[in-house]
């Protein structure tokens, strides 16, 4: 029996030639354009780090390039990876999918690798020498960036060892001295001359003679008085003095019951340090947890360690009996209208006062700057030091940065101010010599309104950027459909209540996994999704690392590539049509 087979192929609709005959490009009235933007982390980093950039390089396995990119902006990632308040993570777009990328932990891993290798040696290509006063993060950053730019730099430090607040103020359990010592040695290895035990005051020092520029970053070391009755009595110690003494290895007698007054990082450091000295500290703060300026993770750690907090309480009097401190009388506060800082102002409540027994009080409500190293007349009437956007003071030849000028007294802000001043000094010295200075709108140096990029100033950004724009790419510009949830790597903590480093960080492999969680917001990382999604097969890949070509003869301007791009690195435009 013969089966009924059709004599020929079925009659179907198919073109006789390829669809290449149909130049769909003629249909378009808009076209896609690859356009790299700025990730929020970069825009928010007070140091001006290319966070997204080094995450991308790590993802590609280009660790050496990642290290190079990081070191272009930040001289001490081993330090910032430990003590920075990492505002980058607060703005990380990934937080809207699962959890922010743990930038500080990746940075710390890279920083430790950097310290394990010999430092680069910067060639001295400039004649003018620069003096830096103060070897804290601002001073060291300025010195480092100037040295990279080819300037001979001398750093003067009043204390016997370099590091400034990193050494004197930050407790060892947050920043091990072995790490800090290696960091300082590494920086000296790059060619920076650091002279300790050299206090510079503007009135009686001729050490500054011969320097073409001076950067002053002497910090803020004077603890503010609380303004409560009996404050001059015994056992009422400025918190910073207490920390400095402990860090010197000379812990003062504090007894058992320690009241720490304040809500900033100094207060938390005091409380956790007192705990490690065997005392039972309590933190008294006049506002609430929400308004605390301290790094949230540090507050969490303090609470995890069992330190009690007395919120909405302001000391009104310190009572002494027979010349010994007996207790602190506090007034119960409540929150009123927001003040100039945007935080709600504490005002006296109707709940009256209460007392806390105390053997010692550590005051940590803020520190004021010392201006001894600056020419007279630089400070404003209220004692603030005002600088221009490149760190220059009102006095010719003097730049300033760090806690001396900063409103945000953080290590990251100090590092950023040192870098900005280095740019300012480089620009001024070049202009003085009549050298062509790259004409930059300062806004172009900034990561989308954030801090400045040294690579942008030098014009040697190693990251290939397609048609770069300074637009900050927020979550709404991303296509989260192409990202899957991946748990954030968690650092481990030691349970020992001693001065060994509490946060043990990540392993190198964990850090790499964490870097891979980065979205690379706004920047093409050649994921090829555009190429895959293009319905006209109009996108082709150039050699690795050089992006894509769009065949405008066939791109019909549908916008699928721009819509699908996971990281908002393609825009639709009418340009060129």
């Amino acid at each position, binding site marked *: 029996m013969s089966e009924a087979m059709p004599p020929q192929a079925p009659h179907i609709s*198919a073109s006789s030639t390829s669809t290449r005959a149909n130049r769909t490009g003629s249909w378009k009235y808009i076209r896609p354009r690859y356009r790299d933007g700025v990730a929020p982390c970069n825009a928010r980093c007070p140091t001006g780090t290319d966070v997204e950039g080094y995450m991308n390089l790590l993802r590609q396995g280009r660790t050496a390039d990642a290290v190079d990119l990081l070191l272009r902006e930040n001289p001490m990632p081993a330090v910032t990876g430990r003590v920075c308040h990492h505002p980058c993570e607060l703005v990380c777009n990934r937080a809207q999918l699962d959890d922010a990328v743990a930038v500080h932990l990746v940075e710390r891993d890279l920083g430790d690798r950097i310290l394990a290798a010999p430092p680069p040696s910067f060639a001295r290509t400039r004649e003018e020498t620069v003096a830096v006063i103060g070897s804290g993060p601002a001073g060291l950053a300025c010195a480092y960036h100037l040295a990279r730019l080819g300037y001979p730099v001398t750093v003067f430090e009043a204390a016997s060892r370099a590091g400034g607040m990193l050494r004197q103020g930050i407790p060892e359990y947050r920043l091990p001295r072995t790490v800090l010592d290696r960091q300082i040695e590494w920086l000296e290895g790059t060619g920076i001359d650091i002279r300790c035990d050299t206090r510079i005051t503007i009135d009686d020092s001729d050490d500054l003679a011969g320097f073409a520029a001076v950067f002053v970053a002497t910090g803020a070391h004077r603890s503010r008085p609380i303004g409560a009755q009996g404050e001059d009595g015994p056992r009422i110690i400025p918190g910073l003095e207490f920390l400095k003494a402990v860090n010197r290895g000379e812990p003062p007698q504090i007894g058992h019951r320690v009241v720490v007054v304040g809500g900033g990082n100094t207060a938390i450091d005091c409380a956790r340090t007192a705990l490690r000295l065997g005392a039972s500290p309590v933190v008294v703060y006049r506002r609430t947890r929400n308004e605390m300026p301290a790094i949230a993770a540090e507050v969490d750690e303090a609470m995890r360690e069992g330190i009690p907090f007395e919120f909405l309480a302001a000391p009104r009097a310190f009572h002494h009996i027979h010349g010994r401190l007996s207790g602190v009388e506090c007034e119960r506060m409540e929150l009123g209208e927001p003040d100039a800082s945007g935080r709600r102002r504490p005002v006296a409540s109707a709940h009256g006062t209460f007392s806390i027994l105390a053997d010692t009080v550590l005051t940590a409500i803020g520190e004021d700057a010392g201006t001894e190293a600056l020419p007279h007349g630089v400070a404003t009437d209220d004692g603030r030091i005002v600088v221009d956007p490149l760190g220059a003071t009102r006095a010719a030849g003097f730049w300033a940065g760090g806690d001396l000028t900063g409103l945000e007294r953080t290590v990251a802000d100090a590092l950023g101010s040192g870098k900005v001043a280095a740019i300012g000094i480089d620009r001024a010295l070049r202009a003085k010599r009549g050298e062509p200075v790259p004409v930059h709108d300062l806004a172009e140096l900034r990561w989308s309104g954030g801090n400045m990029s040294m690579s942008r100033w030098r014009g040697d950004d190693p990251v290939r950027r397609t048609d770069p724009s300074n637009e900050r790419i927020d979550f709404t510009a991303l296509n989260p459909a192409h990202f899957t949830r991946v748990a954030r790597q968690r650092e481990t903590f030691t349970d020992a209540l001693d001065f060994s480093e509490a946060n043990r960080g990540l392993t190198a492999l964990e850090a790499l996994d964490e870097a891979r969680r980065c979205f690379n917001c706004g920047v093409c990382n050649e994921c090829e999704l555009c190429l895959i999604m293009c319905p006209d097969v109009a996108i082709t890949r150039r050699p690795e690392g050089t992006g894509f070509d769009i065949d405008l003869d066939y791109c019909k301007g549908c916008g699928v590539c721009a819509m699908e791009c996971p990281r908002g690195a393609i825009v639709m435009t009418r340009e060129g049509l």
Partner: protein
Amino acid sequence: MRKVIVGNHAVSLGVKLARCEVISAYPITPQTQVVEMLSEMCATGELDARFIKVESEHSAMAACVGASAAGARAFTATSSHGLVYMHEMLHWAAGGRLPIVMANVNRALGPGWNIWVDQSDSLSQRDTGWIQLYCETNQDVLDTTILAFRLAESVDVPVMVVLDAFYLSHTAEPVIIPEQALVDRFLPQRAARHRLDTAAPRAYGALVRPEDYMEMRWDQQLATTRAQTAFDDITDEWARLTGRAYGATEAYRTRNAELLLVTSGTITSTAREVVDARRAAGERVGLIKVKMFRPFPSVALRALLRGVPRVAVLDRNVSPGHSGIFAEEIRAALYDVACGERPNVFGYVLGLGGRDVTPAVINEVIDRTRAGTVAEREDLWVGVKA
């Protein structure tokens, strides 16, 4: 080999024996087991096929369209809302003359939400150009799945294998599993007459102007009609190989019948029991099973029903505002029969949404049919509560 398996797994085993190459499906009750088993087979390597996960039935059929156009043997399975969601792509498959095979587990459409047997889903796809084959037993399901690939590829028309929700899909019966070598002889590798070729790119499904469109449809019509004779030949060959005979229609105890029931799906098995009982009581009652709904076997049915005074069509479906769909088709087929020989057709609507069609229900149908001379309406509803 004889195994006790549910109808869904009979489909899966049929697809495996057919050496299907691409499977794309989206799960839906009561079809899920079909693709669960197939995905396991693909995962373990028991079946050398690409399993494409998709987000919807529309995409499942789109994936099958692409795979079939590339020359692969492609399969999907669905049910109810999944099938009607696929509707547009069913036209693409048939119009593109792609021999895709699909199993559809008959399930009612909502609302009211209902997962039980009802033929409204498959019959609502009547005009998409798909061949439709209805199954009565799990053996029927397995054999029909293999036959469907052979039929589809012989005429370049897609085939839908239809089985009742739960009565077949989830009910285990003994099924003879044919040897792979036997199936390989019966169903050689697909030899596609059109095949996507990246070396010679062409646009498929491209624009066709009015002066060419009708020729495509005419070719499709000839091929789909030819599927009737092709099915006869293919089932004959299958019967020689396995001893199991199938046809577009089946006549059961129709000799001298004064009343013939017309059924499809699992109602047929119940009706066989009732016919046996009525015959034992001396009544001249018989049964016609319709297996092939598209192409509709009009010629065969005219021959079988001509001269029978009363015909009762049992429809587990309804075309709202008209009647049961099998009844409607049979009335149309019989219109050409001369007046004196044309049966009175009684179209019963019953068993919707999985309501049980028991011997008592079928007996009621027979009694009502015998009591009347002509049907008082085109749709005679059975068992509707007041």
